[in-house]
């Protein structure tokens, strides 16, 4: 039989090529496991840190309706983080380890959350653009090769589309409002457009791991492919709102059936990735503070559970 002559690694790849999902207890190459732990935990961290810029506006939302919606969205993001941490844990890492790596700065999260949310229109842009970009990234991952990851992404994607729609609705409301409100929407778009394009990561030629990740089906489109899709999707939506994307090079290319667009400022991208964005220190500081100040709660809950179990054992 042919399979007998295949190495373990070849058999593994053959399963992936046949679109068979890999489950936690199945054999997998070390590099696959490591890459997945990094990718999934990075994504989980992004969901967690991603709550901070929006959390900033929960108490300042302009109406009770907007406040309830924003609260729900932020709660969803916490849930997304939890689904993803659980998926990563099935690969043999621990929650404590992942959080320690986030807090020490060793692990990364999406650079977009290192930008400040300065006005209410930023809540519109975050939902519309940032969640919109996240959806483009995430939908293909519902078919990723690692079972627990794919299942977590299905759950995440189901919840994301409300996030984008509520953001778009905020933008639409502002754009149909007073000139000052529309100006606020345009100003927010000006600040968020380029950082959102950076969310898809470095250019393909600067992304040496893409080929391996595509082979493993833990990535299903390249960074540049997704960036192009995003621009093609968003330019008409901005036009609908009567807003202008802050890129003079944006132009429909009839031959390519796609929009041409300008070059991302990669120096800024790498500066933010390396920790020198506007809010890196704030975000990490807030995370560490929340974690440390919650330590006594975690310990007390555990001590209480242990005590109760012991009491029940004595009573039995």
């Amino acid at each position: 039989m042919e399979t007998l002559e295949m190495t373990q690694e070849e058999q593994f790849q053959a399963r992936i090529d046949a679109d068979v999902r890999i489950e936690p207890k199945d054999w997998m190459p070390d590099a696959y496991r490591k890459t997945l732990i990094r990718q999934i935990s990075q994504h989980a961290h992004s969901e967690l840190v991603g709550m901070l810029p929006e959390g900033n506006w929960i108490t300042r939302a302009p109406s009770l309706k907007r406040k309830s919606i924003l609260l729900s969205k932020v709660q969803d993001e916490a849930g997304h983080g939890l689904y993803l941490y659980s998926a990563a844990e099935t690969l043999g890492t621990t929650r404590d380890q992942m959080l320690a790596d986030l807090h020490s700065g060793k692990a990364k999260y999406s650079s977009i959350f290192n930008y400040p949310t300065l006005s209410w229109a930023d809540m519109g842009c975050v939902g519309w653009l940032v969640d919109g970009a996240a959806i483009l990234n995430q939908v293909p991952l519902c078919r990723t090769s690692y079972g627990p990851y794919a299942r977590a992404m299905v759950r995440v994607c189901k919840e994301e589309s409300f996030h984008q729609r509520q953001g778009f609705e905020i933008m639409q409301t502002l754009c149909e409002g007073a000139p000052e409100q529309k100006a606020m929407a345009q100003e927010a778009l000006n600040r968020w457009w380029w950082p959102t394009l950076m969310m898809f990561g470095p250019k393909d030629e600067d992304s040496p791991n893409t080929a391996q990740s595509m082979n493993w089906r833990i990535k299903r489109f390249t960074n540049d492919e997704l960036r192009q899709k995003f621009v093609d999707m968003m330019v008409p939506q901005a036009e609908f709102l009567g807003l202008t994307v802050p890129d003079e090079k944006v132009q429909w290319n009839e031959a390519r059936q796609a929009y041409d667009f300008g070059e991302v400022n990669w120096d800024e991208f790498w500066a933010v990735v390396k920790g020198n964005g506007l809010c890196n220190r704030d975000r990490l500081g807030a995370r560490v503070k929340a974690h440390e100040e919650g330590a006594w709660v975690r310990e007390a809950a555990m001590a209480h559970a242990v005590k109760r179990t012991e009491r029940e054992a004595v009573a039995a």
Partner: protein
Amino acid sequence: MNQSEWPLWEVFIRSKQGLDHKHVGSLHAADAAMAIQNARDVYTRRQEGISIWVVESKHVHASNPDDAEAFFDPANDKVYRHPTFYQVPDSIKHM
């Protein structure tokens, strides 16, 4: 002390009356009551369930994927366990 991490629980949800509880994921909690509470917040924010089971993950025993062939193959050649294996004359109804 690095024993701060709460134990891991597997979460099972019955989405509606008459259906099985189905595994939906896992979470950390100090005890069963907290696990159920958290499961409600993490896994049923949109009316996905009417009943929740939680089981501490360490109590779940699983079959070994390396033995899957030897373990499950014996069922492969027992086609007679399926009703389609049998021929029923056309004139026989309701069988």
